[in-house]
């Protein structure tokens, strides 16, 4: 009884400690989200933006965007882009992580070097890749032509498919070190003695990898994948700078389309609706993540 009371007291004290954080989150995160949901149900255009009384039009904005071809393309592109990036950056990032976990000379400086690409501002990366993918004078075409892999220069960012590929490559360049870093930390946290014990029991290298490394790394892998998904799915700056969603709508993703609707065409309601679709997609992924995490914690 006594201890129960004290526990309660401590709990109340605990709430006081998180009050500032909660207030912060409600104002700076909660408010914009709520506001965005509200305007997505309103008729908000250039003419009604300034007026306080805007008509509630129910799901009209959502209806409009779902019959909009560009929106459907943007939704598809966002998934293609995200999955493409995840596959490349996770698999290569994992390989690098295992590689650098072997503590050879210079492994640390080289690893540090690779991380630079992750630390660059995305706008810079985007501009650099835009130049590298240029049809004439772009270094990628020059190299490929000198190696006689292609005969004619490719207009990388001028056609839909190659433009998307270019974006995926650019983002993977940033994403690989990010994946590598997190996975390396995970690998380092697996105690050496487990491997030693396995060696004594006569486990092969492949067995050790599949039965020890992978299961013990599972929480890290999950976080890397989910974080990677969230970060990639909400891409804006890279696409905006590299292709601007073009040519035509070939690389339009949800975030750039939402921006375009809101700030170039002044269809604020529809822009908010697109952003909310993006929000819902990510929220679902985050929930799945939390579910798997809490399962692991119970065990």
């Amino acid at each position, binding site marked *: 009884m006594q201890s129960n009371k004290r526990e309660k007291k401590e709990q109340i004290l605990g709430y006081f400690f998180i009050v500032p954080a909660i207030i912060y*989150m409600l104002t700076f*995160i*909660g*408010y*914009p*989200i709520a*506001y*965005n949901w509200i305007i997505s149900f309103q008729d908000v255009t*250039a*003419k009604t*933006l*300034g*007026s306080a009384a805007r008509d509630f039009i129910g799901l009209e904005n959502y209806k409009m965007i779902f019959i909009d071809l560009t929106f459907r393309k943007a939704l598809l592109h966002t998934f293609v882009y995200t999955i493409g990036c995840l596959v490349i950056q996770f698999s290569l990032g994992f390989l690098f992580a295992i590689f650098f976990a072997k503590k050879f000379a210079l492994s640390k400086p080289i690893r540090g070097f690779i991380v630079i690409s992750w630390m660059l*501002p*995305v*706008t810079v990366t985007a501009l650099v890749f*835009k130049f590298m993918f240029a*049809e*004439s*004078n772009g270094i990628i075409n020059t190299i490929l032509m000198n190696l006689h892999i292609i005969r004619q220069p490719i207009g990388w*960012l*001028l*056609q839909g498919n190659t433009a998307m590929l270019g974006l995926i490559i650019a983002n993977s360049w940033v994403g690989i070190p990010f994946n590598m870093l997190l996975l390396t930390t995970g690998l380092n946290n697996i105690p050496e003695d487990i491997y030693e014990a396995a060696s004594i029991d006569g486990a092969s290298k492949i067995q050790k990898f599949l039965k020890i490394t992978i299961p013990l790394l599972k929480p890290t892998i999950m976080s890397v994948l989910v974080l990677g998904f*969230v970060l990639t*799915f*909400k891409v*804006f*700056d890279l696409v*905006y700078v590299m*292709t*601007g*969603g*073009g*040519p*035509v709508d070939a690389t339009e993703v*949800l*975030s*750039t389309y*939402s*921006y375009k*609707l*809101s*700030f*170039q*065409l*002044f269809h*604020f309601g529809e822009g*908010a609706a697109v*952003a*909310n679709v*993006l*929000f819902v997609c*990510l*929220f679902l992924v*985050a*929930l799945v*993540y*939390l579910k798997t*995490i*809490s399962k692991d914690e119970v065990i």
Partner: protein
Amino acid sequence: MKKSIALLTALAMVAGTLMACGSSTDSSSESTVAETTDNIAAESEAPASTDSDTASTDGRTEITFWHYMSEDKEGKYVNQAVEEFNNSQDEIYVTAQYLPRDELMKQYTIGVVSGELPDCGMVDNPDHNSYASMGVFEDITELYNSWEDANFMEGSINSCYYEGKLYGLPWGNNCLGLFYNKEMLDAAGIEVPTTWSELEAVCEKLTTDTCKGLAISAIGNEEGTFQYMPWLLSSGGSVTDLTSDGSKESMSYLYNLIEKGYVSRECVNWTQADAEKQFASGQAAMMINGPWQFSGLADDAPDLDYGVAKVPKADNGEYASVLGGENVAICAGANVEASWKFLTWITSKEKSQDICKSIGRFSPRADVDIQEMFADDPLNSVFAEVMPSAQSRGPSPDWPEISAAIYTAQQEVFTGQKDVDTAMADAQAKIDAIGSK
């Protein structure tokens, strides 16, 4: 408890989304990298604004003026003018603030909701109507009507009117012309093209493996539409009838230049500044561009010997140009009186003439004789001659959507996604649908 913390974490994880796309019109949506870098760029250039000026602000009415004339080029002259104004009287102190164009436009929209607008600012003239309809700007009709010195060219002042009321003053005009590399034309022994078929012939002669005949911008934004307009108008086309023969002819003509390799296909990703880089580096023998590029060309290629001519006309058409430029306006809820004093000072005959000349614009005032002013200047005189007949875009609050339909059609054709007939018909359908919404 654990669950709700988990839920909050989840919320926090996805929250960045909404902010990243900036669709939320709250000003806290500025945390994306792209915007941050923009802001850093803006801030790092802030010291160049009038803060460093010696005039004290004590007891003076302070007002802010937003503009998008980049600090290292035209912006210098804007700051100079502002400083001159601050020193010329002791009632008002103006602080000029540079923001990149896209950022500035976004801040206006955000400002309508958050109420954080400057006192006065600059706006691209085709967008003026949209922002006026949004309520960004103050109605200054009465002030204007009682202003003795009001004397602007009709096309320019018209772009400031929305539903019969005046929401701003013209700041500076520009239009497009054909820049040509004299050395290349002389070496090939050819004359400056004046018609479309001559242009094509010149392009054919000047296009080599390393050099394109002509550089244009056909990017997917207002710049792309702006650049397309002279061609559209010259062949008798119009934005209200994109499916007419004249309209289609202009699009087919440009596509033909790209198909033949005279114009780089990359123009769909090029801004006008990118086109200037191509021309300056000798990778294009000619370009379509405006007088604001003179200072850039002087920096990038000081030795380049170039000339300017009118944008070639359709073989059976007339010369045409499109009116570009900026207006200045007083923002809603701002200090109207002080702002009006500043804006009427800076758009007065003498000042308008000075500042426009230094920033590569032409004074929009009817009492400034730009042709006489630039009579001895072979480059500017071409633009000065074209200026009076330059046609404005809009004015219409729906212009951004009309423009989007046009540049999209242009991109569809140039990238080979649609043929001219389909692209133009689709664009026209989009424009027709705007009114019915």
